[in-house]
Structures are given as C-alpha cells and as structure tokens.
C-alpha cells in the first residue's frame, strides 16, 4: 500500500488544536495583525466541542479594584499549591496579566455571572487566599457552572470575525522542519481520508491533555496525548510528565467531576461497610482535607478491600453520602451535581448513596516552554517557530499540583503571550520544508492498515488504562512502576499485532483509534518512567517508598524518547526569581512546606 500526499497548503500561522489556548492565540494574532492567514486543526467536529468547553468552576484573576486581594497573594497561593515546583517568572507573568484577560473576554461578549450591581461576580475556590493563607479570597470570576464553555464560545466568535480557517476532525501526525526551525505539520483529515502538508511561518501546539491514559478520567475521549508523541518523535523533550492530578470525587463509570462542593456542604465519604473513613486519615479536616490527601484515603480504603464493585463499571469505588443533608441543600446548593448522579448513574442523592472514586483530572507536565510559550529543545535553547500552550504545554505555572480555576487563567494568558511572540515570525518569508515530506506518517499509517494479527485496539487500550490506574495512579512505588514500564513495552509489542477491519481511509475510526493508542502508549511510558525516576513525593506525584519531598529533586525533569522505551533524562532548574530578587515578601517564595 502506498499512501501519498494529497496536497500542500500554506498559511502564516498553524494552530494544532482549537481549544481555549489555541483559539486565544489565534485571536491575538488576528486582532494585532488583521488579514493573517491562520489555519487551526481540530480533532473534534467543531472547536465548540473541545475539552475547554467542559470546564465548570471559574477563572482566577485579581481585580485591581479589589480592596483586599493582591497579585502577590495569588502568586504565593500558586507557588505553595505547586509544591514549590512552579517557575516563578511564569507565575508572576500570568498572574499580573490575569485581569486584562478577564476584561478582554468580557468586552468581547462572554456572559460572566454578575453581582446585584451588574459587576463581575466573584467566588472563592480551594487554595486561593488573601494575605498568604489568612482567609479565602474572592478571586474566581465565572459563568455559572460553564465557565469553560463561555470562554470557548467567545473565542470561537472572535476568530470567526478575524477570518480563521478551521480543518475539523483532523489531526497532526508529524511536525515538519526547515533545518532547526519548525515550519509546518502533516495533517490527516479524517472525513476525506487525505494527508495534507501544511507549511507555516509559526506553529502552535495546543492539543490538550492525555487523560485517556487512565481508566477513569474527567477528560474527553480525544485527549490521548498526541502532543507528547509529536514532541518526542521530533526529538524534543517532555517536562515533568509524572505530575498528574487526580480529583478525589469523580463519578464512577463516566468519570464526571463531582464538585468539591459536595464535601463542603457536608457530604460524608463511606466505604463498603458504610464507615465514615475520613476520620482515620484527617481527624480534624476529614472530608475537607486537600484533594490529594482525600484521593489517597479513598484509594487506601479500596486497596484494603473496603471498596464496592459494580460489574457495569468494572472498577471499585466508595460512596459519598448526601442523604442526611436537608432538602434545601440538595435543591439550592448541589442541584447540578445531583442531576449528574441522577442522569449518569441513576442514583437519587437524597435517598441513595452516590458512587465516586479518584479520577484522573489534569496533567501539569507537558511540552516545555519558556514564559512566551516558545518550545524548549533543551534547558537553554528554544525551537524557532514552535510554540506550545494550554494543558499540552508545561511552562510550569502549576508545578506539581494545580489549583482550581488556574488552568483557564493559564490557557488564555499563555495563548495570548504565544500569539504576541509568534507575530515576530509572521513578517518573514515562508520557510522551505526539508526531507521527504510526510514519509514517517505514510509509513506509520500504511503499517496500521496492513498489519495482520489477532490483537485488538480496544483490548490493548483497556489493558493499558487499567495498568496505569493500578500502578501509576494515586499511589506509586518502585516495584509497581518497574512492572508498569515493562508491561507498557509489552503492550506496545501487542499493539504491533493489531489488524484493522476497516481498510479504507475516509472516516476510519479504527485507524484513528489505532494511532491514538500509540500516543497513549507513548504518554504512559513517559509518565511511568518519570514517576520511577522521581524518588520523592510532591503535589500530585506520591511515592509510598519516598513519602517526603527531597531537596535533591527540586528541579524539573526533561524526558527525551526518540525510540520507544529508551528514555534520556535531563534536569532543568526551577525558576525562583521572586525568591532570588528579594522583594518585600521574598521569603514566602522559598522552599516552603505545603500545609493547609
């Protein structure tokens, strides 16, 4: 079988991924340089279907008119939450830009919720405080319980106005270079089954996360870590992939997020014997202890055989008990989440126990960038013409643990910064591509279509997801991680034996899932190897054999993997400019303890 290039097209700016970060970047360029030819590739049917649209809570930013809140408090909360692994130059830049972004969105029609005076309403969120932990900060602006959707709809409108071109249901399979400079990408258009080379003066990776690598995740179906594969195949590193956040209360089965509100209104976690087990783990804070602690408590109960198993969900869970809460709490404070239980697991939270378990939620690591969103080739050098933004990137605003409402802030600010920086490339000539254009892609896809064997995409994928949840999930330990690395390699070998039933190219869902499986395997290998290498515990990464933070590991890891399973690791120091510059609150930005 000979696959071939259908056509080559050119543009000024190529955005791979059309979620919040990618479209904010596009909007910046289209506003500052009207008439720029921007092409955005999205794997979903339309940008409105992107994962950003599912974000509920809010968007953190300090209002300069606020009489009590200050940017330095937000910087401190982010630094502390990150378990001292965020890069402080990035933290400062994003926090200081936050409010301008809120105004940008508001002025362009986002329907933010308002207070009685018609001003932007604000609410509190876990980990956000004033005066360095003294009290909760009213810092999150929001659009009801659909803030992400509000952002997406606004950005979609703005880029339409600017004249963007979308290529829907398509995916980038390979980055293309002109010498050292990134100059485009190979794209597989699912609907037509065509391979297209797109040349560009600048390329932005904005491809979201890799949550599908775990069995229960709050992520969309298409979040399969394609960006990590693209990066390592191009010889570029991935930073801190082991930094994975698990939300303690995902609704078992679909993995839908059951908000922290359930615990704050008095929900009680119970095991199979209906024992209220949080008393054992956090006698004072109980259900209100931090996310990672509660997630570990639930996992411990499950591991001790006190979980509940339902065949339909094929994974164990515990209960959250809301039955004792007064009717008005169900009706006015948790109606949305209560409706999720009703809709997705057929449970009436007023009368029945609700099934929940820790669910994969967010990946703090990703393709490393500087504070302008430029991708790093190594700790010092950037890749000319290549940017990365949003969850797929790691400028390290979140370090090893992300605070709620900080991801939306990050993706729009970094989108803007990358757009501003990309403008510098747009004035020059279109670089010429070198090498056999798309040859790697054609070989890979031809192999997928021609392989004969007994293995099945779904089987290998589900084995991988179960393995990652068991051995590289909330708890990690040397032996388990070693087994995981070995077994991921075995699953990779099994994947090479997958024969597809559908052999033509147009809208071949099997082919796409086969390609995604390879990306999941790559992501899993990077996460597991990163976790094996990091012999300490911090933020979302918890090693039972090394439960404390180790000062020897106060640095980021850059993982290179040009050949599957052969990982090379380099270190990159954490930027501590706020500490080193010695400003009035410098001591708060040292290697502090993360206690709440």
């Amino acid at each position, binding site marked *: 079988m000979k696959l071939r290039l259908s056509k080559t097209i050119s543009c000024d700016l190529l955005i791979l991924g059309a979620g919040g970060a990618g479209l904010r970047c596009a909007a910046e360029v289209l506003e500052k340089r009207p008439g720029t030819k921007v092409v955005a590739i999205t794997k*979903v*049917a*339309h940008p*409105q*279907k*992107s*994962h950003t*649209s*599912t974000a509920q809570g809010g968007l953190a930013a300090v209002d300069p008119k606020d009489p009590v809140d200050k940017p330095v408090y937000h910087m401190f909360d982010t630094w502390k939450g990150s378990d001292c692994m965020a890069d402080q130059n990035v933290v400062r830049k994003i926090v200081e830009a936050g409010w301008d972004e*809120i*105004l940008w969105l508001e*002025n*362009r*029609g986002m*329907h933010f919720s*308002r*207070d*009685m*005076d*018609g*001003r*932007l309403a604000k609410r509190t969120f876990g980990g956000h405080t004033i005066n360095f932990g003294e009290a909760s900060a009213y810092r999150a602006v929001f*659009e*009801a319980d*659909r803030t992400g*959707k*509000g952002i997406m*709809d606004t950005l979609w*409108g*703005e880029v*339409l*106005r600017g004249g963007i071109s979308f290529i*829907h249901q398509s995916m980038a399979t390979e980055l293309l270079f002109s010498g050292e400079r990134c100059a485009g990408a190979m794209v597989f258009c699912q*609907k037509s089954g065509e391979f297209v080379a797109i040349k560009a003066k600048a390329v932005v990776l904005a491809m979201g996360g890799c949550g599908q690598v775990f069995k229960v995740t709050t992520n*969309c*179906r*298409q979040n399969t870590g394609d960006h990590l594969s693209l990066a390592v195949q191009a010889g570029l590193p991935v930073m801190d992939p082991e930094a994975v956040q698990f939300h303690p209360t995902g609704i078992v089965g*679909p993995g*839908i997020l059951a908000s922290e509100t359930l615990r704050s209104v008095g929900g009680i976690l119970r095991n199979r014997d209906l024992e209220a087990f949080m008393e054992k783990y956090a006698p004072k804070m109980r259900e209100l202890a931090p996310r990672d602690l509660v997630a570990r408590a639930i996992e411990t109960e499950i591991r001790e055989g006190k979980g509940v198993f*339902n*065949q*339909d*969900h094929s994974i164990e869970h515990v209960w959250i008990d809301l039955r004792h809460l007064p009717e008005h709490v169900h009706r006015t404070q948790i109606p949305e989440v209560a409706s*999720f239980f009703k*809709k*997705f*697991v*057929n449970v009436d939270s007023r009368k029945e126990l609700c099934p929940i378990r820790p669910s994969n939620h967010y990946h703090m690591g990703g393709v490393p960038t500087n504070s302008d969103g430029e991708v790093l080739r190594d700790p010092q050098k950037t890749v000319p013409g290549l940017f990365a933004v949003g969850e797929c990137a790691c400028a390290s605003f979140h370090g090893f643990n992300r605070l709620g409402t900080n991801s939306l802030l990050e993706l729009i600010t970094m989108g803007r910064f990358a757009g501003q920086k990309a403008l510098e490339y747009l004035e020059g000539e279109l670089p010429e591509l070198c090498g056999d254009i798309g040859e790697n892609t054609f070989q890979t896809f031809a192999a997928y279509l021609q392989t004969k064997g007994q293995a*099945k*995409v*779904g089987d290998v994928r*589900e084995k991988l997801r179960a393995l990652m949840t068991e051995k590289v999930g909330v708890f990690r330990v040397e032996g388990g991680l070693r087994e995981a690395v070995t077994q991921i390699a075995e699953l990779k070998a099994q994947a090479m034996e997958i024969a*597809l*039933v559908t052999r*033509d190219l*147009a*809208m*071949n*869902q*099997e082919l796409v899932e086969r390609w995604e499986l390879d990306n999941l395997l790559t992501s899993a290998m990077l996460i597991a190897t990163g976790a094996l290498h990091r012999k300490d515990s911090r933020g979302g990464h918890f090693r039972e054999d090394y439960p404390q933070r180790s000062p020897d590991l106060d640095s980021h890891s850059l993982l290179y993997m040009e050949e599957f399973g052969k990982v090379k690791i380099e270190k990159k120091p954490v930027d501590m400019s706020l500490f080193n510059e010695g400003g009035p609150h410098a001591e708060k930005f040292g290697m502090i303890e993360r206690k709440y």
Partner: protein
Amino acid sequence: MSDSYEITMKILRYDPSTKKRWTQQYRLQAGGILRLTDLFRKINMEQDPSLAWNSSCEHGQCGSCAVKVNGKPLLACELLVANAVKLFGINQFFIEPISVGPVVRDLIVDLEPAYGRVESLKPYIMKRKENLYGTAEYRIAPQEMESYLEATRCINCFCCATACMSGPKNFLGPNAIMASMVRVLDPREAATEQRLSVLHGPEGVRHCHTSRACSQVCPKEIDVAHYVALAKAAQTKKHRET
C-alpha cells in the same frame, strides 16, 4: 444495584467507499447504568470494531454524540440503558444519524453545513455599544441577563434542528436563530437591527411552524421555541410601528 438488559441495537450504517447503506443488528447484554455511548464502545470492543460513531466529552456538555434513537434526537452519552427501556417501553433501539448534514460514515455526520448556518449568523458581538471599552467591564444587571442567559447554555448538538419540521434546506434552524437572538438581547450589542433583518429574511423565522419540537427535544431543556418566538415578535412589533 442495576439490572441487566437484553438489548437489540439496530444501527443504520453507511460505508463511504461503496456508498452502501444498510441496517445492522447487534444483540448485547448490558447493565442498566451503561449509557448508549458505552454500548457503542462495547460493540466496537466485543463485536464489530468497524462501527463508527462520534463523541467527545461524554457527559452532556459538548453535543458531539447526538443521534436519533427510535426517531427521537438525543445525546447518546446521556441515555442510560434502564432509562431508554423505560422511555421507549421496548428493549430494541433503532439508531440513525441526525439529519442536519451529509453522513460521512455510519453515525458520523458532517456538521460543516449545520455549523455553517450558526456561523452565518455571527455568534459574536458584531458592533460593540460604546461603553467604557478598554477601561473596564460593561455593567449588566443580573435581571437584564435573565432574558437571554438560558439560551447561552446551547451546545449546538443539533437535536432541535433534527426535530424541526422545516428541515435544514432553506431554514437557518432553531439553534442558529437562538444564537443570534442571544446577541439581539445582549446589551453590549449595537447591531440589533442588522441581526433582526437577517432573522426576518428569506431563510429566517418565517419557516418556523411553531410546532415546538425544538423545545421538546432539547437535551439541555432550553425553551428554544421561545427564542424563535421572540424573533417573530420583533417582526410583528416592527410591522405595527411602520
């Protein structure tokens, strides 16, 4: 916990390489708390990897998985087996793609033309009203937002457009009209007249039969017909004024 059901899924299939269309039957045993998207995945894993279907978030927030089940447009990720059996009073489901664009393969529809109708109505502020721009946010009282807030929950799943009696041929469709009405009602928008003239134009609200099918099938329970009616009312008002 949940019961197990003997389910028959009859799925309308389409193969773009042969242009063949046929109905394929799958029998499966499924727990009552599985959703239709889970069943599609189960079919892919256990019986037929070639069945193509669409989804993204799989929790009712993106609208990618809209299909017709026994004639009713709905989101496959939201329909639990137990509820489906209760809703239709039968364990047999006929599943076909929504009818707002050409089918690409099996249950996957090309949404380009359907979204094109929404995008032609410019789902953004066309002309900003003068108001402190650049210095601060607009002030909008919550009561003022009440008139259109419900409509901003629309996810463009096109269930309403699928159920609409007028069909997509010469009609912009209920969700597209609603998206434009959001900006008509938005106090930040100055191009209200321009919007209404399109809504009252040849592909606009005149095609609406007022069947309210759009409101009845909306998975987000938005009263879509109400917004179409507001667009019509604006026209009536204008007639009276002239």
